[in-house]
């Protein structure tokens, strides 16, 4: 199972802060495409992604047990 986390505007778009997906090994890019088509989310291609709390590339692998967070442009401070 893969845990997916949404924040800020994406969380409002998704209508929830997180969801679980039963998926085999995939990539950040494939996961983004899948979520954009299954949920009505736009702009995932413009957000950063963290896999297990570290920034990841679209080509990075995602496997069962991972937590994938989509990180819109940050605005702390």
């Amino acid at each position: 199972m893969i845990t997916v986390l949404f924040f800020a505007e994406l969380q409002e778009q998704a209508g929830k802060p997180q969801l679980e997906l039963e998926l085999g090994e995939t990539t950040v890019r494939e996961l983004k495409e899948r979520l954009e088509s299954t949920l009505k989310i736009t702009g995932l291609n413009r957000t950063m992604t963290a896999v297990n709390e570290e920034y990841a590339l679209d080509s990075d692998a995602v496997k069962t047990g991972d937590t994938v967070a989509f990180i819109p442009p940050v605005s702390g401070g």
Partner: protein
Amino acid sequence: MAEELFTVTEAPIPVEDLVKKVERPEAGAITTFIGTVREWTKGKRTEYLEYQAYVPMAVKKLAEIGDEIAEKWPDVKTAITHRIGRLEISDIAVVIAVSSPHRKAAYEANEYAIERIKQIVPIWKKEHWEDGETWIGDQLETTSYPKGKPNIEEERKR
């Protein structure tokens, strides 16, 4: 961190606490940066703000900023606390405290910390104005995040 130098909290941030965290007999200079909720931004009036964070990762990234600073300014000690939740005008959103034997490094490292917070720490701000609300993205306005690959390679090199 035994001392919890890098934290995210829903409670008000007492500035003195951060100062105490970095105080040391070898330090002659402590700088703090206190980010507060501003009422007016480009003629628009803010009623209140809401901060959200990906807390475990935010704490980790704050600590990373501390590590970066320790590498660039070896004699410096840093503590950062960021508040989340609903904040009213003049409430403190973030406090950065830096101590150093000499003042130049204390200023430089402190400014470096706030710049890095605005780049890599997963915290978001929602502005509530009189006539609406919106999540604020990318205060630096320097990156457009094409293809979701910002500066990851660069970040990994740090």
